């Protein structure tokens, strides 16, 4: 089992060991296109739970080395969401969506609409919509 796990791990995260033969998924310069590389280091996210001002402070003070090789592009909003776009070090897009869940939970407690589940009813029975509530 240990050997199997090791092989699985190698197969999953060390693809260079697997693609010794010439792969059709290689760009000019023999750089592998697939699987793409993982980012190299963790970074600190703009946590949506924290106040906006704190996130702005963090943005202004964070050094590139703290952000790994993922490059934050810009922040925007859509409805209740805060949107942070990041360019991963292999060029792929990463979007972090934040949501004020504390406020949403409060809204949910006041605006929740109970859902009506009708009772099972045979085809030959007349339907009584009020009784299904």
């Amino acid at each position, binding site marked *: 089992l240990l050997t199997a*796990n090791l092989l*699985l*791990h190698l*197969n*999953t*995260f060390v*693809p260079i060991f*697997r693609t010794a033969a010439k792969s*059709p*998924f290689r760009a000019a310069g023999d750089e592998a*296109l*697939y*699987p*793409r590389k*993982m*980012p*190299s*280091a*963790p*970074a*600190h*996210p703009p946590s*949506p739970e924290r106040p906006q001002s704190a996130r702005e402070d963090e943005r202004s003070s964070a050094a590139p080395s703290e952000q*790994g*090789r*993922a490059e934050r592009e810009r922040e925007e909003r*859509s*409805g*209740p*969401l805060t*949107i942070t776009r990041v360019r*991963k070090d292999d060029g*792929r*897009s*990463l*979007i*972090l*969506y*934040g*949501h004020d*869940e504390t406020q*949403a*939970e409060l809204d*949910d407690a006041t*605006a*929740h*609409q*109970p*859902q*009506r*589940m*009708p*009772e*099972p*009813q*045979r*085809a030959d029975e007349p*339907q009584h*919509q009020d009784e*299904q509530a």
Partner: protein
Amino acid sequence: VSEQRFNELRGEHVVYAIHRQDRTFLPDRAHCPLDPTKPGGPPTEIPFAAFQIAVFDNRFPSFEAPGGAAEVVVYTDEHDGSFGTLSPARVEALMWVWRHRYGELRARPDVDYVMIFENRGVEVGVTLHHPHGQIYGYPFLPPVPTLELAADERLGGCAPCELLQRELADGRRVLLESEHVVAYVPEAARWAYEAHVVMREHRASLLDCDAHELRELGQTLQALVRGYDALFDRPFPYVMVVHQAPTAAAPVSATPHGHLHVEFYPPLRTAEKLKFLAGSEQGAGTFISDTLPEETAAALREAIARAA
């Protein structure tokens, strides 16, 4: 660098994305690529220590620009759980994320159809257990939405609107109702516990929904998924697909319909038995079902009540 070929006999595209053969397959918990990246830990797809919802370009894409899109939607930074265990606020936020992604992808000239979906369970081929879904931006109109447009033509209007009214009038297969959303097992369900979650009003896409509708959509989806899990008292595998209007710049139909609804295709027909697509389903395209939708709807209704 996937390749598309057109199957003339069936009149449909086939996509060859052979690099996906090497995609991450059921990694152990310590190496989940959808976890946040922990200091000192292995690299993951989200190089941050915490997040709420993350969307990124698939590392093993079936489509990619300028020939479509393939995105991964990670519902939470917590490895354990499912759509059914998310907080109501997170589910609501996810509806907004879906809406945002549909809006952005539909603006792309290389995307003709946006499909948001979730595969849950190894029974339907899941390779990562972390709660997540996917989004495909097809560079062509696939067969299923084409069939839906044909149904609009055949019924002389919006087919989901018409079918919803039929289900409400019948009532036997209705699972859940709220002000804006209805869930039911369709009269001609192909899967034993297939369910459709449909907007009452005609809404072509998530972009046409207001905040209240999005909230109710999320609530209904989650109530249904929790009911699924209660049905056999086990994590219930399914394929969940959001159906919306095509996004092709050119008209794809004389009647430009499209009605936001979510379809679930669960492969289980009993607690232990799977429905396989065999001779009739594959060779003739005709599903043979062992169950009646009225009976599975009744069982599912009871399970939803138990889970509530």
